[in-house]
C-alpha cells in the first residue's frame, strides 16, 4: 500500500498541491480525477518521486519513498508520465526492453526476453515491434510505453493519463488490461484520468482534486453522483445507471 500524508508542493507562491492525504490499497485501481491544473499530475509525480515534495510523506509499504535504493524501487514501482517525447531513434521492442533495465542493468537474460515478449503481446504490439517509435501513431506510441511499464513488472504502476491519444477501442483495451493486471496478478494501479466514465467503470477508488486539495474520495458509487461531480468540476452532470455502471452524461 501507499500512504500519502499531508503532501504539498508550491511553485513560487502558488500551491499546486496543498496538504493532500491519500491512502492507496494494494490490489486496486485508484483514479485521480479533477479539472486541468487541479494538481493531479503533480501529486502523481511526487508519489513516484519524480519531483521532490515540499512537505509531507509518501510511504511505500511503510517506508518513505525517497529513502529507497533507486534500483530496488524501480523493481517495485513504475511510473509513466504523459509528456513522453523520447528523441532517440528506437524501435518498439528496444523501448519495451528498457523496462527490464532495473533487473538486467542492460544485459538481457532469457527471462527478460520472455517478459518483454509477454508485454508486447499484452499490448498487441507484435505487428510493429521492429518499427521505430517516430514512425508510429500517437496511440501506438502510447501502447508501446505502457508495454515498457508492463515489462518492468512492478507491484505498483503509476500512469499519468494513459488514455491520452487513444481511440475508444484502445482506451477500452488498456483499461481492461489494467483491470486484468490488478485482478489476476495482484498489481496496484494509480492513474490520472480525464474520462470520468472510464474512471467510474474500472476503478475501485476515486480521488477528486480541486485547486490542489483533495475534495472528495471514495468508491465510484459514492463519487460518481451529481452533487460530487458538480462541486469538483463546476458544471452540471446527469449520472445515469446503464447496465449496472454509473455513466455521466454532460455533453450537451
Amino acid at each position, binding site marked *: 500500500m501507499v500512504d500519502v500524508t499531508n503532501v504539498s508542493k508550491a511553485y513560487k507562491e502558488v500551491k499546486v498541491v496543498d496538504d493532500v492525504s491519500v491512502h492507496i490499497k494494494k490490489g486496486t485501481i485508484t483514479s485521480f480525477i479533477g479539472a486541468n491544473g487541479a494538481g493531479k499530475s503533480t501529486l502523481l509525480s511526487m508519489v513516484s518521486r519524480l519531483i521532490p515534495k515540499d512537505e509531507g510523506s509518501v510511504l511505500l509499504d511503510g517506508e518513505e519513498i525517497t529513502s529507497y535504493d533507486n534500483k530496488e524501487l524501480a523493481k517495485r514501482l513504475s511510473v509513466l508520465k504523459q509528456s513522453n517525447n523520447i528523441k532517440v*531513434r528506437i524501435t518498439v521492442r528496444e523501448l519495451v526492453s528498457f523496462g527490464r533495465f532495473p533487473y538486467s542493468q542492460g544485459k538481457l537474460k532469457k527471462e527478460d526476453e520472455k517478459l518483454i515478449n509477454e508485454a508486447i503481446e499484452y499490448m498487441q504490439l507484435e505487428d510493429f515491434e521492429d518499427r521505430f517509435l517516430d514512425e508510429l501513431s500517437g496511440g501506438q506510441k502510447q501502447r508501446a510505453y505502457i508495454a515498457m511499464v508492463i515489462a518492468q513488472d512492478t507491484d505498483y504502476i503509476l500512469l499519468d493519463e494513459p488514455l491520452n491519444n487513444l481511440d475508444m477501442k484502445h482506451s477500452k483495451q488498456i483499461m481492461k488490461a489494467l483491470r486484468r493486471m490488478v485482478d489476476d496478478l495482484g498489481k496496484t494501479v494509480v492513474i490520472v484520468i480525464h474520462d470520468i466514465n472510464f474512471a467510474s467503470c474500472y476503478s475501485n477508488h476515486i480521488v477528486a482534486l480541486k485547486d490542489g486539495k483533495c475534495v472528495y474520495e471514495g468508491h465510484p458509487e459514492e463519487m460518481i453522483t451529481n452533487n460530487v461531480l458538480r462541486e469538483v468540476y463546476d458544471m452540471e452532470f446527469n449520472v445515469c445507471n446503464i447496465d449496472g455502471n454509473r455513466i455521466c452524461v454532460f455533453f450537451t
Partner: protein
Amino acid sequence: MGYNKKLIILLSLSVASILLFVFWDVGGQWDYVLPRRLEKVAAITMTGAAIAASTVIFQTITNNRILTPSLIGFDSLYVLLQTAIVFLLGGGTLVMMNNHFHFLLSVGLMVVFALLLFLFIFKREGKNIYFLLLVGIILGTFFSSISEFLQVLIDPNEFLVVQDKMFASFNNANTELLLVGGILLLAATLYLFRYTKYLDVISLGEEEAVNLGVNYDAVVKRLLGVIAVYVSVATALVGPITFLGLIVANVSHEVFRTYRHKYLIPGAIFVSIFSLLLGQWFVEHVFTFSTTISVIVNFVGGIYFIYLLVKENDVW
C-alpha cells in the same frame, strides 16, 4: 548494414588516416621526421577522441543535438584558467615550476566548474536548452575576452615565455603533456566505463531514467566531471576547436541512427580522428600551412550549426 560493420569501416578509415599522416612523403629523414609525426598523431588522436566522446555524452545528458561542451564555453574556460594561473603566479615562477602541475591544477578547477554548472543550470526546474545555449555562448565569449585581457596585462616577455608552453595549436601541439594527458584520459575513461550502461537509459530522458532506477543526479554529476577532464586534456594539447564535437557527434548519430552508446561513442571518436588527421594532412601538404585546421573545422562546423538551428531538429 550492421552496426559492427559500420564501426569497422570507420575504424579502418581512421587507421588509414593515421598511416597516411605518419608515412606520407617522409623523404628519407626517418629518424627526424618519424618521432615528430608520431607525437603529433598521438596529440591529435587523443584530442579527437576526447572531444568526440565528451560531446556525445554531453548531448545525451542535455537531451539535444545542438549543445556541445565547447559551445557552452568549457574550452574557453580552460584557456581562462590557464591564463589566470600565469597571471596570478607570474611567468617567472612558471618557467621554474612544473608544467604538469599547472595542467593538473587547471583540470581540477575545470571539474569544480563542471559541478557548479550542474548545480546552477542543470538543477533549475524547467531547464531550457536555448537558455543554456545562450548563457553558454555569452559565458564562452566572456571567458575568452577576459583571457585576452589578462594576456595583454601580462609582461610581454613573460608572456612569450609561457605562450608556447600553455597555448597550443594544431601546428604546435603541446607534446610535453602527452604522457600525463594520456594517463588522465585513460583514468577518466576507466571511470566512465562504470557509468556507460546508464547512458542509453539517460538518453530516454530524466523521468524515464529515474523510473528505471538510475540515480540520475549522481550519475549526471560524475559524467560532467568526466567531460571536464576530457575537454581539459583536449584543449591543453591543441587548443579550442569550437565546432568539431558538434560535427562528429551528429555524424555518428546519422551513421548509426541508434541510441546505443557502445556504437555512438566509438563511431564519433573514429570520425573525429579521421577528419582531424585528414584535415591536418591537407593543411600541411596541400595548403602548405597557409591555413589552420581550426579555421576549416569552424567554417564547416559553423555552417552545420546554423543548419541544425534552422532545422530545429527534434528527431534523433
